[in-house]
């Protein structure tokens, strides 16, 4: 029942249709639509074919114009698809986002003029984007839907990707004319396949505090963290499948500049190349973050490669999460921080963003999360109790192709 349809409507318009792939995630770089007839499955008990739920479709290399945007590119979402995850990949010196995404009959998911209306290009937030999107350098990924308020309709979708940078310290974007690779990951998981899922995890260890791959499975701090991590994701009916430990030769301290470059973080994530497919969790001594303006730096607990990160790939410059081990003493929140960063990597935003001035509070787009819920895993504050996930947050996690259904027929 594998099927696919790829039509070139015009030189710069590519239509791809969802298709099936084997139940196991495909290897990195696998895919591309291979033509053939579009005989979408009619069997609703196994809607995309035999044990199939994901397919990556490359939309090709596109060039952004002087205004930073690519020409419109189209792809078809089949009736079976439950979510799509779009990736935009380019030179690491620049950041990438979408400058428009619309569904059949012109339904707007990302308005094409949002960059003109927003004060900053890194996040498109409600009311402009009910389905939030976040820019990233090197590879940006966008999950649709990431809120029940957005419906993924079957049919022709049109997207435009956008490349930009911003001079150090500047809050204004500078559009870039560069080549980009755009791909669409089509996910088809009927409700029954979202009842249970699993993610495989690779712990990438720098040897800090004597935590090596050989010792980590017995290290008390790692054992406790892993138990917390498992318990948190069990709430979303997601089990940790393969949990592997690897020694990675790299810096134990990572410096992250808020100037839009991916720098040391990208170098770190690339060290995961060649590992088995899994979400890479890098445990380092410290992650030091430097604001875009002024001198100084601050320790942070962790960072994710994206919201979400690139799907089903390891070793890209955004593939993974990094967590600081330096803090010790008091209640150890290591497992919760790992779970929090993996939550971002799979597509969850903070339930509410920290207020930095007089701006209105920015909540996520999930109706069942509470702005005041300090116990939620995706609270922006570190607390001892940040543990819970809501059903709608679980739904977002299951919409990500990293979460493989475990109850395939």
């Amino acid at each position: 029942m594998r099927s696919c349809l790829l039509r070139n409507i015009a030189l710069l318009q590519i239509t791809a249709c969802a298709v099936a792939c084997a139940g196991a995630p495909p290897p990195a770089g696998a895919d591309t639509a291979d033509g053939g007839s579009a005989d979408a499955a009619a069997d609703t008990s196994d809607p995309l074919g035999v044990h199939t739920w994901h397919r990556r479709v490359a939309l090709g290399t596109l060039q952004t114009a002087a205004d930073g945007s690519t020409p419109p590119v189209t792809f078809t979402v089949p009736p079976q698809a439950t979510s799509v995850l779009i990736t935009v990949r380019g030179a690491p010196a620049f950041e990438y986002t979408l400058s428009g995404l619309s569904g059949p009959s012109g339904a707007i998911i990302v308005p094409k003029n949002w960059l003109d209306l927003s004060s900053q290009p890194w996040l498109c937030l409600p009311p402009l984007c009910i389905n939030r999107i976040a820019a990233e350098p090197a590879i940006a990924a966008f999950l649709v839907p990431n809120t029940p308020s957005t419906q993924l309709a079957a049919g022709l979708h049109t997207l435009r990707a956008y490349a930009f940078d911003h001079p150090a310290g500047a809050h204004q974007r500078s559009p870039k004319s560069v080549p980009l690779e755009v791909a669409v990951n089509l996910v088809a998981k009927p409700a029954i396949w979202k009842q249970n899922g699993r993610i495989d995890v690779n712990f990438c260890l720098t040897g800090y505090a004597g935590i090596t791959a050989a010792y980590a499975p017995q290290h008390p701090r790692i054992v406790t963290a892993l138990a917390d991590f498992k318990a948190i994701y069990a709430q979303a009916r997601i089990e940790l499948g393969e949990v592997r430990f690897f020694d990675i030769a790299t810096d134990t301290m990572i410096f992250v500049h808020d100037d839009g470059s991916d720098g040391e973080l990208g170098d770190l994530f690339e060290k995961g190349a060649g590992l088995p497919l899994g979400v890479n969790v890098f445990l380092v001594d410290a992650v030091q973050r430097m604001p875009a303006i002024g001198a100084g730096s601050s320790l942070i607990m962790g960072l994710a490669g994206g919201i979400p990160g690139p799907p089903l790939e390891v070793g890209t410059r955004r593939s993974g999460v990094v967590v600081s081990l330096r803090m010790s003493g008091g209640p150890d929140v290591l497992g919760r921080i790992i779970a929090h960063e993996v939550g971002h990597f799979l597509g969850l935003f903070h339930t509410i963003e920290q207020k930095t001035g007089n701006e209105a509070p920015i909540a996520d787009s999930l109706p069942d999360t509470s702005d005041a819920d300090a116990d939620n895993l995706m609270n922006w504050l570190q607390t001892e109790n940040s543990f819970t996930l809501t059903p709608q947050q679980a739904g977002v996690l299951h919409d990500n192709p990293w979460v493989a259904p475990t109850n395939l027929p």
Partner: protein
Amino acid sequence: MQVRIVPTILWISLTVPGLCAATSAIAADIAQPLRSWLLAIEAVPNAEQVRRAGGAHTEALLDAVIRDTKETSYARHRALSFLSLLDTPAALHTLRKHLMLKDDSLRATAAVAWASGPGRRQPQDAWPDLDRLLADRAPQVRAAAARALALAGDGKGARDRALRRRARESVPEVQKALDRAVQQLDAREAGARTQ
């Protein structure tokens, strides 16, 4: 006399706790936004945001958090870091004082704060302390200071120090950090030359 003392005691007993409570409430009001920043998982404020959150006594509040051993480890590390963001004599003074902290891990954070803050703004004034940190008894602190050398405002001075220290360093982890600093400083120099 007794008649006058009793009301006075009564006045004090009623008023002082009230005043203390009021003062604490004000302090808590000032401290709460700062506390939020201290406990944020990923976010880092800029200097203006730290100042706005902490008010006129920001440095003193950060100092109190660093010294409070009952505080969470993360808040203490962050408070040290935040001093590097502030370009004031009080922040400089407080951070310099904490370069002597007994806890190796906190001192490592202080070393990075020193190199990335004062070391970036006024490298000539910051070198004596940074030199001491590069020779610290704890390898963790030496490694942190070494890694942060590349952030210093004086690239040549930083490179010279890294090479000097590298010749004497015996711990592989610190050697690696020094090599990385030299590599980054060379890249920075090359980048500056091409611009």
